[in-house]
């Protein structure tokens, strides 16, 4: 059974589309990897598989072994065997290679002929695909398997939870992280997702509120473009842990779309850590050089994710 050497499985859910599930999954994966864990990411969004794009491995093909599909590697383990050495802290060596665990991913995106092809499938076909992704991928030995889902509570989700409850043990099922944006329309859809988890017995690890505010790089005024506060209020109302709020960071978008290392204006301080103060763009090669996981440490969202992942780890591995 391909999931048997996976230690912890975390689902990333949201009732609402476009709140940043794939972004959050990507960043959780990178942050866990930076803490020295070996991570796998399964992208179960069959009609909009975004994960390969996030990791910059869109043009890779999936290789097949006698036992099943081999997940596409994003980066190999660095300085170690993909495990932590005690406290699991990433070594900040300022520019030199950082310690990180291995990261691999599987998505329908790799199996499509043309990236622009529409995958127009009805339920039963999607159900079968999800089952195959869970049983026929050779994940090997992983500390964490993150599963990125499409919006809603449809075939993919039902078959995902069904198959996991059958194939994985209760110790392996760490639970679900729910992503929302602060606005009312998102909150009302996310409430459904919380109830779905409750009905199906999936443990809710916490709620992350994404796109909570945009800070103008020019004048530092924070505008709540998608309203504010909804996530925390809802978490309290439903008695689920609130993991934190994330602002909109155009530098993260730039990192994913163009591969450029995030740079911030002079004096930007996030969470007590001074961000890269080099306000001038480096040459194109210098900017895009290096692994995604290393460039990500310069992003303002990384310290926030570091905090959230530390919280998560203390819950999952007490």
């Amino acid at each position, binding site marked *: 059974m391909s999931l048997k050497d996976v230690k912890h499985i975390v689902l990333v859910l949201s*009732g*609402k*589309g*476009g*709140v940043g599930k*794939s972004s959050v999954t990507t960043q959780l994966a990178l942050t866990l990897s930076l803490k020295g864990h070996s991570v796998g990411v399964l992208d179960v969004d069959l*009609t*909009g598989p*975004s994960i390969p*794009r*996030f990791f910059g491995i869109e043009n890779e093909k999936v290789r097949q072994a006698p036992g099943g599909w081999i997940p596409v590697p994003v980066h190999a383990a660095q300085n170690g065997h993909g495990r932590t050495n005690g406290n699991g802290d990433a070594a900040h060596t300022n520019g030199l290679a950082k310690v990180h665990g291995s990261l691999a991913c599987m998505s329908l995106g790799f199996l499509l002929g043309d*990236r*622009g*092809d*529409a*995958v*127009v*499938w*009805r*339920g*039963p076909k*999607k*159900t079968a695909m999800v089952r195959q992704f869970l049983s026929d991928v050779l994940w090997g030995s992983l500390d964490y398997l993150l599963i990125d889902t*499409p*919006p*809603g*509570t*449809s*075939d993919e*989700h*039902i078959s995902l939870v069904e198959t996991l409850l059958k194939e994985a043990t209760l110790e392996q099922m760490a639970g679900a992280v729910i992503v929302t*944006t602060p*606005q*009312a*329309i998102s909150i*009302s*859809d996310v*409430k*459904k*997702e919380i*109830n*779905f988890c409750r*009905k*199906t017995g999936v443990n809710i690890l916490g709620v992350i509120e994404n796109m909570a505010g*945009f800070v*103008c*790089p*020019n*004048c530092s*005024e924070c*505008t*709540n*473009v*998608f*309203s504010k506060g909804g996530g925390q209020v809802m978490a309290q109302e439903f008695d689920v842990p609130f993991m934190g709020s994330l602002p*909109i960071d*155009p530098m993260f*978008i730039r990192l*994913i*779309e163009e591969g450029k290392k995030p740079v911030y204006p002079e004096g930007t301080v996030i969470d007590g850590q001074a961000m890269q103060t080099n306000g001038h763009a480096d040459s194109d090669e210098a900017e895009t050089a290096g692994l995604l996981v290393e460039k990500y440490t310069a992003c303002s969202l990384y310290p926030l994710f570091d905090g959230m992942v530390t919280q998560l780890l203390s819950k999952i591995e007490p």
Partner: protein
Amino acid sequence: MKRGLPEKRPITNVGKVIAVSSAKGGVGKSTVAVNLALAAARQGITTGILDTDIYGPSIPTLLNLEGMEPDLDPNNRLLPLTAYGVKAMSIGFLIPQDSPVAWRGLMVQKAMNQLLFEVSWPKLDLLILDMPPGTGDVQLTITQSIELAGAVIVSTPQDLALRDAVRGVDLFKKVGVSILGMVQNMSTFTCTNCGHHHDIFGLDGVRKKCDQLGIKLLGDIPLHARICHDADAGKPTVVADPDGPQAQAFHELIKAVGKTVGLP
């Protein structure tokens, strides 16, 4: 039981049907659909809006109709609710708000058929369909069951959204529905404090994609905290700020679309 593809049927009393779609979630389909419907109504076109998002119906919140239940007419068909001069129907009116709709494809198909054919619409010039994200059962059922005058694809400028939007375009091409054009949503953000422009989600990605695919760019809607704020309050921009630039953008959009499909 008759096998094969369902035959397309017209919806009683309804003129043109336009789908507002995007394979990507969270780009603003519902917000755009609602504001388009309201703009059309204000231009004298009798309009209705049908929320086909079974899993995450947003129309009740956007039109301040949350918690309302529709009545049935003498033929046991659903009577649409009214808000701001527009008729509306959504599964959100039929199911308690916090309950998840965890249904498999077949049930979704049946529910879709009911929403399409068993709603007692008054005479409408235009029916706008707010489509859900993705390219699955709902999209297939709709395109196979009714005649669509056209589809408007909404996207944000970023590459990630566009890649999925392109699938939406591909889907409609595959089933032979004409693409009226694309709308670039959440384009530029102008800081209310210092007036600086920020292209948070990338610059003009939709415009470039339209040029690439040979599709019309119907409109460009900037990111403005007000649009979300008004939407959350159940009073969409066209109603809350009818003379503002955002409302103007929606009016221009419906005029452009109306000309192409032949609205009065």
